[in-house]
């Protein structure tokens, strides 16, 4: 056997071993966009963690004229308070990502919990929880967020909880569907027959199976949470003292950056938001695609084949 494998031109199949690392490779292989997304997210995570160290100026002190033009010292100019835009963007990355990840965490815990209970236990809990989920799915998130944020008052932790507590519905539905199918698998039934507790089954046998899907969902939820944070901040419902990309856009809008021609106060924060959301989307979608075997098959050819017209027949005949 090994003699044949050593022959040139013959490659022995390596014994295929499914591991966690295998999935990561599956996702990146053939999907360069996933790698691009991961790199984008990595860069912004680095910026968010080290914002205090790499920011060239303080975000609380005026360093030049209002809406100062971009220069060698201030690459992206100054904002409406004469504060360096680069420093603001770096600091904003921190707040925006904290809100995004914290809200996604809240949403995942609530949605994952609801989905897990509904899918695993089935029956009455399932119908009650899913009915509630269906109603919340229809009620539009952002107006509800606006109402709650207005009533609770502007604060960063309120924003995190409001976004987190309203974004769980999609997660709950996706996790429930997946748990329902995992629950019926033989090894889960065996574990139950052997007397494993519900906790053990859920955490040892069900959760590892749905983990990749959960990760994809967290990443996609981060994107939506950051998006919603910019919306809330734009309406003046975020913490007025915290610098986030949303509040940078809000300030530039309210302080007439457009009529002053200060494009540098508006364009960069929007591009930062878009880059992070694209990074999250690319990673999340790549994981979901890798998990969905139905997307691998397509029966319709990308290339068109033109047949030579048969003699004596109309050229439209095919």
């Amino acid at each position, binding site marked *: 056997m090994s003699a044949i494998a050593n022959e040139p031109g013959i490659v022995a199949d390596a014994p295929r071993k499914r591991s966690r690392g295998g999935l990561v490779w599956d996702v990146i292989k053939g999907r360069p966009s996933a790698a691009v997304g991961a790199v984008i997210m990595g860069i912004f995570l680095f910026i968010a963690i080290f914002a205090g160290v790499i920011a060239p100026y303080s975000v609380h002190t005026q360093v030049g004229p209002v809406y100062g033009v971009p220069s060698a010292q201030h690459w992206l100019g100054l904002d409406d308070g004469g504060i360096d835009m680069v420093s603001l963007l770096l600091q904003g990355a921190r707040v925006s990502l904290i809100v995004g990840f914290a809200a996604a965490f809240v949403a995942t815990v609530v949605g994952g919990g609801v989905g897990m209970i509904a899918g695993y236990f089935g029956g009455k809990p399932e119908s009650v929880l899913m009915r509630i989920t269906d109603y919340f799915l229809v009620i539009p*998130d952002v*107006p509800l967020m606006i109402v709650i944020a207005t009533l609770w008052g502007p604060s960063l932790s309120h924003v995190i909880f409001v976004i987190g507590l309203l974004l769980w519905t999609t997660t709950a539905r996706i996790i429930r569907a997946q748990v329902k199918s995992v629950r019926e698998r033989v090894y889960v039934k065996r574990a139950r027959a052997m007397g494993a507790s519900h906790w053990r089954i859920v955490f040892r046998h069900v959760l590892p199976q749905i983990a990749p899907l959960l990760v994809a969902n967290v990443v996609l939820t981060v994107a939506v949470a950051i998006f919603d944070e910019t919306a809330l901040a734009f309406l003046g419902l975020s913490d007025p003292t915290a610098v986030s990309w949303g509040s940078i*856009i809000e300030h530039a809008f309210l302080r007439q950056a457009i009529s002053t021609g200060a494009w540098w106060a508006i364009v960069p924060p929007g591009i930062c938001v878009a880059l992070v959301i694209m990074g999250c989307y690319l990673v999340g979608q790549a994981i979901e695609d890798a998990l969905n075997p139905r997307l691998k098959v397509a029966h*319709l050819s990308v290339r068109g084949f033109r047949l030579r017209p048969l003699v004596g027949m109309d050229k439209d005949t095919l």
Partner: protein
Amino acid sequence: MRGADYLLKRTLFALVTVFVAVTLNFVLFRALPGDAVSNLSHVPHATPALRLALQKEFGLDKPMWEQYLLYLKELSRGNLGVSFATQQPVWSQLRSKLANTIPMVALGTAVAIIIGIGTGVLSAWRRGTVTDHISTNTAIAFYAFPTQWLGLMLLILFAGVLPSVGMHDPFIVGAGFWASKLDALKHMVLPAATLALTLYGEFTLVVRSSMLETMGEDYVLTARAKGMKSWTIVRTHALRNAMLPTTTLIALSLGYVVAGTILIETVFSWPGVGQSVYNSVINRDYPMLQGAFLVLTLSVVFFNFVADLLYFRLDPRISA
């Protein structure tokens, strides 16, 4: 009879959702920090007489469940309360704002759906090619840009070319019917374009992935084996079946339409329901906010119901 069963179920669901929204609207605004009476005293320049009148009108001295019943009763008569800021009935204000919002949102959403289906089908059909990459990545980019930011970008780019504030030119008084209609249409271009741009990206991605799922079905292979033209297969076999999940997902994304409307109307000072949400947040005008929230939620519930009915038309398995 499964068709009738389905219709009954969806109608019931819509009605219960309306009830949930109405109740939520009550609970949220009664769960205010501080009691509602002290919030009434936040009315700017409120006379004691007005305060008493409001207190009596809202029935704030009664127990909670009685207030709830009173709220339901007044709501059923179309009474949404009186705005703190303008001291006008909320409903009559919202009705005129709704008339301003609907044409702009309808135009933007329709354009987004048409472009979204077009580019989505194109990238699913040409999957893996340069066309697919360009179309999908552009869609992701527009999906990722914040709505208000896109609006501001259009403002910067087209500030001199197209009107950017409000929905009428205040200086064209006495112009003819068509001239004023043309003026309104010109004002509508930028807000509607912003809405279309923010929505089309998501629609493209939704259509593309539903199309990819149907392209792998056996009936597509059969159709191809029969020698049908690719375009015919895409149109009659793949797209027709992909429309089912697409309809559901587009209906569910109507919440984003509403969110986009609030942001866009704020950016372009479009005097619609979205702008009144912004103004009532700024002024802490709770009755107005409550009314606007109810109107927006009910419209999303309504269009979800419409999508359910559309599903009934699209999927013969339900009505059979």
